[in-house]
């Protein structure tokens, strides 16, 4: 149970249910959001791109966390769903509709594809489900690559600039604010979902599906809902990537991204809504640092290139193993330990 700072009591039901309880909470949240929103003012353009990438991946990570961490349906096709969202949004936008509509179309269509992929999950689970979703990943990418008339095939597709009410939102700082708004909405939804009947049903499903069934939870329905919500997030994140980059190919959404997303939420903390906020920045910063190192060193030491490029996978692999053995609950667990101790500091209880 959450431990409250001394002097804070729950006197009404509304107080007990509030996500942000105290004035300090609200202060932190608002300052934090404003600080995040002001990042384009003082970050260099290249650093801002990294931050946008992190924000979009966090959004995708939240969706995957709902699907894998809370509902327990392991999906190795998350990058595939992102691709579905990205291409849908690009196509809708190229047809002349506003990009906001495109993003939501991307989300809903990815969610629909997610339900189709989720259908096997009604009969199978565990390793069989993992392999089914992996097959889905390959098949989705294959269909996108070969439906040349609609998607441009191997050459990719260009997504229109984000234009709303006749204004061009295409520059990186504005795109960042849009991504941030989506991230805020996504986080608020995920945090509240955990506390609803649906969220609790997911957790029951994950912990013991037979017991959940006995408790009166319609397993088939909630599995599909979990797939829809998780893939909706993926679709929106993919659509944001499409409009941010302007042009996309399927290489952006390969199997490796699916695996990395799983690594992000694992290292962040599985099933915790804080998890993606801790895991994604850590790992994305590591890979960006390696990319930077590669590009700067390849000029003077070309032979180092073959050593540094695989180093990325090596670090990810070792990080996954390290966290699984020493901190299976991820960074979120450390964070909650820290939170409890600073709340009561300097007294132990």
């Amino acid at each position, binding site marked *: 149970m959450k431990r409250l700072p001394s002097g804070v009591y729950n006197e009404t039901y509304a107080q007990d249910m509030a996500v942000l309880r105290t004035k300090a909470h609200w202060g932190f949240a608002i300052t934090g959001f404003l600080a995040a929103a002001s990042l384009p003012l003082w970050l260099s353009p290249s650093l801002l791109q990294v931050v946008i990438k992190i924000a979009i991946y966090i959004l995708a990570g939240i969706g995957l966390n709902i699907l894998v961490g809370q509902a327990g349906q392991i999906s190795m096709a998350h990058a595939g769903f992102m691709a579905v969202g990205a291409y849908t949004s690009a196509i809708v936008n190229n047809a002349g509709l506003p990009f906001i509509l495109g993003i939501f179309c991307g989300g809903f269509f990815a969610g629909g594809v997610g339900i189709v992929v989720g259908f*096997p999950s009604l009969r199978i689970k565990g390793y*069989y489900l993992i*392999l089914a979703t992996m*097959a889905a990943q390959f098949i989705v990418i294959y269909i996108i690559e070969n439906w040349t008339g609609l998607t441009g095939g191997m050459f990719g597709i260009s997504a229109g600039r984000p234009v709303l009410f006749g204004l061009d939102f295409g520059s990186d700082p504005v795109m960042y604010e849009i991504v941030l708004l989506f991230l805020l909405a996504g986080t608020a939804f995920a945090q509240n979902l955990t506390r609803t009947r649906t969220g609790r049903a997911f957790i029951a499903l994950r912990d013991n599906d037979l017991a959940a069934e006995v408790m009166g939870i319609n397993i088939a329905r909630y599995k599909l809902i979990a797939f829809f919500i998780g893939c909706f997030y993926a679709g929106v994140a993919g659509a944001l990537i499409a409009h941010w980059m302007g042009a996309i190919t399927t290489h952006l959404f390969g199997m490796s991204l699916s695996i990395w997303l799983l690594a992000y939420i694992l290292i962040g903390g599985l099933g915790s809504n804080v998890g993606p906020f801790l895991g994604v920045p850590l790992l994305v910063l590591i890979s960006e640092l390696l990319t930077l190192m590669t590009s700067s060193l390849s000029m003077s030491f070309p032979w180092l290139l073959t050593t540094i490029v695989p180093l990325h996978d*090596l670090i990810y692999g070792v990080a996954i193993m390290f966290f*699984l053995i020493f901190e299976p609950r991820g960074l979120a667990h450390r964070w909650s330990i820290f939170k409890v101790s600073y709340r009561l500091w300097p007294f132990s209880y």
Partner: protein
Amino acid sequence: MEFFFQLVASGAAIGGVYALVGLGLVLIYKATGVLNIAQGSVLMLMAFITYSFSVQLGLPFYLAVVFSLLVSMLIGVLIERVCLRPMIGQPLFSTIMMTIGVMLVFQSIPVMIWGTSLKSYPEYLPQKSYNVGGVLISSDYLWGFIISLCLFSVFFLYFRYSRSGIVMRAVADDQQAAQSMGVNISRISAIAWAFSCLVAAAGGIVLATVTSVGIFLSPIGLKAWPAVIIGGLDSIAGALLGGVIVGVLEGLSGGYLEQSFMGIKEVAPYFILLIILLIKPYGLFGLKRIERI
């Protein structure tokens, strides 16, 4: 029609290798209940190590094979002790991510050591083609298939008649019951991992002989998954059949559909995998776990 048989024959030969890699997956799954996603990368690593022994150290090829088989067993035991042992009692997601971590590590190490250029073994098989009923089969493929079949029969007999094979099946069936009968479970799972990596190494050497040594070998190992799922995760005969089915399907779709659907060869096994999962969720020969949902 000759074209058809040609495709079937070469597909079946490649399928033999898939079946061999799939056998490694089934071995671990039967004994420890873990699906080893790193199998393909172990296969690639062992192909590279064999290359090192035979070309870079200049050992005779057969000696190099023996050495690398020994190394592969060592690697298997090491993976089991270091990585999978702490995962006992953890949820399924943890074991999956652990094998993914192992896969990432084993995929990157060969690139760091041996680079990305293609390499090949010294020729140790007679380079000629055999005419089997009007169908030409190159000796590489034929020998690969024969080696796979031999290893298959060895493991089949091992599981059926030897003491430790039977013990392994008992562990797979019910860990607690096996333990109460005096079975040392940790030793059994170490043996299973050693055998599985040995089989992967054999598959890697066969595959690298047919093609060449390179980082493309690791994704080929992925093809073993559709194979074992089609056959059922816990059936050795199923792995053989699944592997051949996947190989033949790949050959046929590559031969007939490649003009109209580019790249169908790579995805065809996964289409079949999804269809089979929808019709028979536990594969053709897999053990059905009866659940009422």
